[in-house]
């Protein structure tokens, strides 16, 4: 099915691993216009089959790999692709974004998206070249680490091409995905679609890897204008203090010091907001002593990735989350150990955030006498072995592989099992950035800072509005959630949106105008509400700071202004929410552990708690949801979601399986013997 829009390749492939059947999935231009691409497109596809999905690890689950219309057009940082599925970690929709080159090559093969369903009887890998799809046995690769398997696949492809190297993109899983670790990730080059256990879903399908290559080119609708815009945009990102200086110099790791400064650095399983040894595990130390060179994903001018040496080999360095959670989070002040663990977790194919948080939960549970597991804060010598045990589900690792929600149901300590909807939180401590607390709680995929709107950028990291006030946080959260949803959907990296904040506000925090903006922001809720309620009134392109909507217009030929852009993001966000509500999510699930809502971070200062219920009320209002957190008919109609199959579907039983379900299954199995 071809398309009249530029930027798209016009085809979506559906692969059924049970039968080996390949078919083209119908996807119309109307759907392209409404659901753009990336995670929003994936959500639409999953929503159409939601009633057929039995459980996350059942063959009926869909693994949907999508690209955005900007992928391959040359727009900055646009090589990102998205993997969505029903998550074994949360039992609801998850979407995981990755900077590897798989999406870029998928479009070269002529496809905008790849849907994988069914389950192969034996381990396989899928080779795609243009329209040729071939399934090969992967028995020899089963158990291989992600780096090794990627090298091995390159050799296999070369064998099939008379020894010539074949340029290709890959997604692979490691042992963690094979053994259905609930937070297993999918790896492409050195980048990961880390969160939500997409690797476990791929593993459950017995699919070890997908390689893709092709010789097609992405055509923008207006290539000359696109080139001019890119030139301007690259220059702007280059000159901006965040995207042109801080991110390349320090990476995301540069935030450790700022978070320490603001009391936002999760420490000892989020008990505290500051870590005394932070200087040993911060971005400055990483940059000064260890970083070899900054690297970027394909097409990225920002280049925030680190390169460090582990066992004499240059490998990817840790991001902020990994540094924070495997540093202060478990009271470890050895940065070289974090490099090593980061590398090991990537090789095993596991999410560092969830792994680190599950570990710190286990340490605290042990400390409090709830679960005798031998793990202690600050004791690091056994941890490398532990990662291996988790990935292979051995001993205590077998239980840690289930994630902190599962463990807290079994052993107790729900107050300090730091997850939202089953997904572990990122390294930002929300009690000193309450807007982000609201974001974590309401985020569609669970405890994610990015899907949660990333209000912390206005609450101390970047701008400095009052971090403790609930004012304007709900409306700000809605606006940024929508904005970031659409940026992801177009295939771009969220970091391009840093440049949304004019450089002088970031460069001169002490200037009168910056202070004035910080003072005004808490009062700006009603203004943001207008944009949130009626995005279509912003029928312009924002000059200089926001090129995303213009790039979409030039690449695709759609009529896309700032307002329509936000609205497309809103449509995606509400659709994801709608899917989740059909899987049993209500306002009661939009919650944080009691550690954040009931215990102040600073003893005696009640403002250092997250006033979640207060903000939630406003949030649902701003979103057009009822107070039970369900989207109202009116907002569905406005976003043209009311006629989708999912809108008419009855609410299903939750798909997440806790320890009780496992016991029940075991009992049944015993009964059968």
């Amino acid at each position, binding site marked *: 099915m071809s398309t009249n829009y530029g930027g798209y390749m016009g085809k979506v492939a559906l692969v059924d691993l049970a039968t080996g059947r390949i078919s083209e999935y119908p996807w119309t231009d109307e759907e392209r216009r409404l659901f753009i691409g990336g995670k929003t497109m994936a959500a639409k596809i999953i929503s159409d089959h939601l009633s057929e999905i039995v459980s996350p690890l059942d063959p009926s689950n869909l693994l949907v790999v999508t690209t955005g219309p900007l992928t391959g057009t040359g727009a900055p940082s646009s090589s990102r692709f998205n993997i969505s599925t029903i998550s074994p970690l949360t039992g609801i929709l998850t979407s995981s974004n990755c900077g590897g080159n798989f999406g870029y090559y998928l479009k070269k093969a002529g496809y905008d998206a790849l849907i994988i369903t069914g389950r192969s009887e034996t381990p396989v890998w899928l080779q795609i070249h243009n329209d040729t799809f071939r399934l090969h046995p992967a028995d020899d690769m089963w158990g291989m680490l992600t780096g090794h398997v990627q090298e091995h696949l390159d050799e296999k492809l070369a064998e099939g091409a008379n020894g010539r190297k074949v340029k290709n993109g890959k997604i692979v899983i490691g042992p963690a995905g094979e053994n259905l670790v609930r937070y297993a990730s999918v790896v492409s080059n050195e980048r990961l679609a880390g969160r939500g256990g997409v690797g476990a879903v791929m593993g459950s399908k017995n699919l070890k890897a997908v390689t893709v290559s092709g010789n097609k080119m992405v055509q923008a609708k207006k290539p000359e204008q696109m080139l001019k815009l890119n030139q301007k945009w690259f220059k702007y990102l280059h000159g901006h203090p965040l995207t042109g200086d801080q991110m390349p110099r320090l990476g995301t790791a*540069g935030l450790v010091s*700022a978070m320490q*400064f603001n009391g936002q650095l999760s420490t000892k399983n989020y008990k505290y907001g*500051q870590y005394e040894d932070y200087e040993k595990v*911060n971005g400055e130390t990483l940059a000064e002593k260890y970083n070899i060179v900054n690297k970027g994903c394909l097409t990225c001018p920002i280049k925030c990735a680190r390169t460090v040496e582990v066992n004499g080999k240059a490998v990817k360095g840790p991001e902020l989350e990994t540094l924070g959670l495997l540093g202060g989070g478990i009271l470890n002040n050895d940065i070289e150990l974090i490099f090593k663990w980061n590398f090991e977790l990537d090789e095993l194919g596991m999410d560092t955030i969830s792994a680190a948080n599950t570990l710190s939960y286990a340490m605290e549970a042990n400390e409090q006498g709830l679960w005798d597991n031998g793990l202690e804060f600050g004791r690091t010598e056994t941890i490398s072995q532990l990662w291996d045990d988790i990935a292979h589900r051995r001993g205590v690792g077998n239980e840690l592989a289930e994630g902190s929600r599962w463990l807290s149901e079994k052993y107790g300590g729900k107050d300090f099992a730091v997850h939202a909807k089953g997904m572990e939180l990122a390294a930002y401590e929300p009690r000193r950035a309450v807007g982000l607390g609201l974001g974590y709680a309401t985020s569609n995929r669970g405890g994610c800072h990015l899907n949660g709107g990333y209000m912390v950028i206005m609450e101390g990291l*970047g701008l400095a509005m009052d971090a403790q006030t609930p004012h304007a946080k709900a409306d700000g959260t809605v606006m940024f959630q929508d904005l970031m949803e659409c940026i992801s959907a177009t295939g771009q990296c969220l970091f391009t949106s840093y440049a949304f904040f004019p450089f002088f506000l*970031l460069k001169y*925090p002490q*200037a009168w105008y910056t202070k004035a903006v910080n003072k005004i922001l808490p009062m700006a809720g009603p203004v943001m509400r207008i944009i949130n309620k009626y995005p279509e009134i912003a029928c312009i392109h924002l000059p200089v700071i926001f090129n995303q909507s213009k790039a979409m217009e030039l690449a695709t030929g759609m009529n896309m202004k700032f307002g329509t852009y936000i609205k497309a993001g809103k449509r995606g966000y509400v659709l994801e929410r709608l899917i989740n509500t059909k899987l049993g999510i209500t306002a009661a699930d939009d919650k944080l552990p009691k550690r954040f809502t009931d215990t102040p971070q600073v003893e005696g200062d009640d403002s250092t708690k997250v006033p979640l219920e207060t903000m939630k009320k406003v949030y649902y209002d701003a979103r057009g949801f009822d107070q039970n957190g369900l989207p109202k008919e009116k907002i569905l109609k406005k976003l043209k979601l009311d006629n989708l199959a999912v809108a008419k579907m009855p609410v299903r039983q939750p798909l997440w399986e806790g320890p009780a379900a496992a016991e029940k299954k075991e009992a049944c199995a015993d009964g059968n013997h």
Partner: protein
Amino acid sequence: MVTIKIYGTLRLKCGMGQLETYTDSIKDACRLLALATGTPEKEFRRCKFAVNGKRVGLGTKLSDGDELVLLAPSGGG
């Protein structure tokens, strides 16, 4: 004696992370830092400041044994 610590990209730019010196105010500390590193004074004055872990403004006085932290403007992650 006051201990001054610099974080953020400014630390890489001026090539110094820590300085111990005698000074009685943040403004004076910025002047000394500029002298010691050759980086323009305004680069230091536009930072965020904390003394002994508490956020303060540019006009704050310092006393013996204080730890002054300068955080260069930053954001995002």
